[in-house]
């Protein structure tokens, strides 16, 4: 209702800007004509029903999938991501839902996986110190960085995955369902973690199905539905309205109108030309 008034424009610079991103898998259009802006120091929640295209969008941004069409601007420059390494090199870090940790390796090895110091004589001491510093910055509770990941709890694994994504000092970090399968206390810790990441001036994209978590931490809520933008909302939006946008159950003139108004508001206030 009054969400247009509360939606303060994000203060940070525009980090990522997508225009008209489409992704087709054969005959299926997983994404069509997606626009998305993310600013520094902002948490954008990406919500949508199953099959809405959230994960596909994250994979496009992570360089795992290449978009069929559309343009991507990162920090003002048009970019194309041919593979995961391109995204990492640009400063786009991703924490996947399955965390992509090697359970047989210890915390230090996982944090530095693929980015080890001194490839021909691994500098374990320097890596361990850096790992502790990263974890301490996140006020993380990890008992020992020399234990295999298999011995850690779900929240601790999430912490390790986030710490790993921060190693390369990214500008944008994407979290795919960071609170799924976590208990109450661990969820709160992960949300704290996300806030700390935002305080460091990073842009955060977070996918979640949990509206409580989304509203607790997000600055903006972008709704996808059936592979299309379905409105931008703010944390004070009513649950009903959000759910309506997500499921399309309340896909009537009123909600369309409010969504459109919201989008327009965002366009005028955002950095879009």
């Amino acid at each position, binding site marked *: 209702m009054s969400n247009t008034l509360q939606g303060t424009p994000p203060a940070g610079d525009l980090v990522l800007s997508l225009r008209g991103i489409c992704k087709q898998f054969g005959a299926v259009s997983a994404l069509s004509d997606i626009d998305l802006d993310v600013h520094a120091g902002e948490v954008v929640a990406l919500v949508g029903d199953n099959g809405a295209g959230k994960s596909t969008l994250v994979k496009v941004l992570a360089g795992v999938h290449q978009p069929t069409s559309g343009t991507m601007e990162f920090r003002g420059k048009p970019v194309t991501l041919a593979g995961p390494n391109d995204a990492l090199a640009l400063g786009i870090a991703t924490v996947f839902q399955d965390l992509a940790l*090697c359970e047989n*390796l210890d915390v230090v*090895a996982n944090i530095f996986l693929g980015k*080890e110091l001194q490839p021909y004589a691994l500098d374990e001491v320097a890596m361990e110190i850096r790992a502790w510093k990263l974890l301490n910055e996140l006020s993380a509770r990890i008992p*020992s960085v020399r234990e295999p990941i298999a011995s850690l709890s779900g929240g601790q694994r999430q912490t390790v995955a986030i710490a790993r994504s921060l190693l390369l000092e990214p500008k944008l970090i994407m979290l795919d369902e960071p609170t799924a399968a976590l208990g109450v206390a661990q969820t709160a810790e992960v949300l704290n973690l996300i806030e700390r990441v935002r305080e460091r001036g990073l842009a955060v994209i977070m996918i979640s199905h949990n509206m409580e978590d989304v509203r607790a931490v997000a600055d903006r809520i972008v709704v996808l539905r059936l592979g299309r933008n379905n409105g931008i909302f703010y944390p004070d939006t009513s649950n009903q309205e959000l759910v309506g946008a997500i499921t399309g159950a309340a896909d009537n003139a009123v909600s369309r109108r409010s969504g459109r108004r919201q989008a327009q508001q965002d366009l005028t206030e955002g950095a879009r030309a």
Partner: protein
Amino acid sequence: MTSDAETKPAAAAPLDRADTRVRHDTGISGAVRGFLDRVRSGDLGSLPVVVGLAIIWTVFQSLNPVFLSSNNLVNLLFDSSTVGVIALGIVCILMVGEIDLSVGSVSGFASALVGVLWVNNGWPVGIAILAALAAGAVIGVLYALLFNRLGMPSFVSTLAGLLAVLGLQLFILGSSGSINLPYGSPIVDLGQTLVMPPVVAYALVLAAGAATFTSGYRTAARRRAAGLTPPSLGGILARALIFTVALELVVYYLNEDRGVPWMFGLFVGLVAAMDYALKRTKWGRSMTAVGGNREAARRSGIDVRAIYTSAFVVCSTLAALGGVLSAIRLASASQQAGTGDVNLNAIAAAVIGGTSLFGGRGSAYSALLGIIVIQSIASGLTLLDLSSSLRYMITGGVLAVAVIVDSLARRSRVSHGRA
């Protein structure tokens, strides 16, 4: 959010001792407790090998007192080196969770190639050996292509390779079937008689002990300087001392007879190099990661295909080297080379030594330990004058036990949260 302040480590505590929930074992009792904890949770390490070796040696020694004589042990080391090198390659391919069933055939083909090129065609022996190793590498590249590009499971591609390469071996040997390598050439001496002078053997063991100590000491010093808890110097010194003294005693015992074979020295050198590569280099870390979680490795930017290729190539090349060594050990290249139990012995050695069939866990030293177990069984059964039928059955039984131990330990590790 109020908990943030509590989690800040006390200023005095080292970075890795900030969490008060963790018990940090120190001293001898701590080391023993840590060891028991690890074993109980299924992190067996080399324990099954040591226990197995003790049992096997006790049984065979009581059946035939010649078994543990210096002479027999020196022979055992000669024989271990050939299949041991092949097992080292198997460790490599098992690390990434794949398998190479054709190592026996590749080793036989390599030995035949050396025989044909060197003896029949008159190539210099060094070039002939290099050609055999290159042939092994090419076979590895082929498996890697089949695996990476066509998605062919390594189990199937190498099973096909087992037959195809055996065919190649028979083809290049032609109707003669067997080529004798000239006795008296230095390379054949290496496989037959060359042993280290006692002084050299003692010195090498001493150097290895000193290297263990200095590397441990350096790490401890660096950790202390960096504000991490260093391992205790006493522990490092004690371990290095025990290691050195035990090996010097073994060398002394072997020197009672001929001494330590150079070929075994070569094998141990390869094992040490592989251990360094697997534990202390980015390549080794990537191998372990690919074996543990292929998708995670790919997403962290590791070139997974290149890692698989390197594993296949290293495995096949070491198999070829093992074949060359067995040719000079027997002073002949024959149709029988690499057939029979070579394949399974190599795989069994790696698994018995503690390298997991499921990928992501293992150590180069498992090839060394495992092959000594396998070779002890073979040697003991030969001394008892048992037929090869019984030998196959017993070796097969030991392999089955090793795999069962591996599977049970893995299940236990999973339930204890140790991957």
